[in-house]
């Protein structure tokens, strides 16, 4: 079996995004939610680089990927800060404990 290289990378990208999406749907732990987002964004960065490789515009792809990496890191920082503060206030990392208005 001789798979073309872009197809291998494409399957990796979609599977990575799928794993992240599954974790996002299934988990109730706030830190796991941030981990799932990180996995999905890694797939997106890889997709940018693959697109740059296929179209020959690698420099544009690299600059876009740089922006995505910065945004991803900030999302992780803010998400973790929120998770820590929620844990300190509610005593739990459970997403369901946030719905305090619903009784």
């Amino acid at each position, binding site marked *: 079996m001789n798979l073309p290289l872009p197809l291998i990378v494409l399957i*990796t990208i979609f599977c990575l995004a799928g794993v*992240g999406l599954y974790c996002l*749907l299934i988990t109730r*732990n706030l830190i796991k939610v941030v981990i799932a987002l990180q996995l999905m964004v890694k797939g997106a960065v890889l997709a940018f680089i693959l697109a740059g490789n296929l179209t*020959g515009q690698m420099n544009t792809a690299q600059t876009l990927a740089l922006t995505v990496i910065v945004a991803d890191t900030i999302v992780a920082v803010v998400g973790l*800060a929120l998770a820590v503060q929620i*844990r300190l206030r509610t005593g739990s*990392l459970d997403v369901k404990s946030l719905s305090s208005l619903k009784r």
Partner: protein
Amino acid sequence: MILYLLVGLGILACAILSISARRLLISAIWLALTSALVAVMIYLLGAPHIAVIELSVGAGLVTVLFVFAINIAGEDTSRLKSIIPTPVAIFAVVLAVVLGLVLILRANVSVALTAPLPENSAILWQSRYVDLLLQVVLIFAGVLGVIGLLAEKVKPHREEETE
């Protein structure tokens, strides 16, 4: 091709181990390994600058942040029952992945290059100037996030009693 396959399988294995680990700290370490392997794949695809940034930021900085946050928040090893039933989640994910792959593979993308492409730095400082401004704003938001991470525990808000 073998190298791409091995790295791809390694990325998927690390990602699955990352979401299935019981302890959050172990999850963070598997995430760092996923990030390192993604950096290897990016390097293989011909983008060494982003590979280095991904390796240092994804596998370094973010992992340190995760370890720090988990140390403050504490391990929560209790397995909470998910709101969505597992078969429904698996079906939704498989559907999304298959549809995405089919749409991408059926699309006929053709790119016409008219002018020689400028250098990395020229694109970043001239064509993507708005992106740079956005990055500055995001980094400022990140600083505020770190302040939130390090903030002291605040007592819950209590309404003042009326006399």
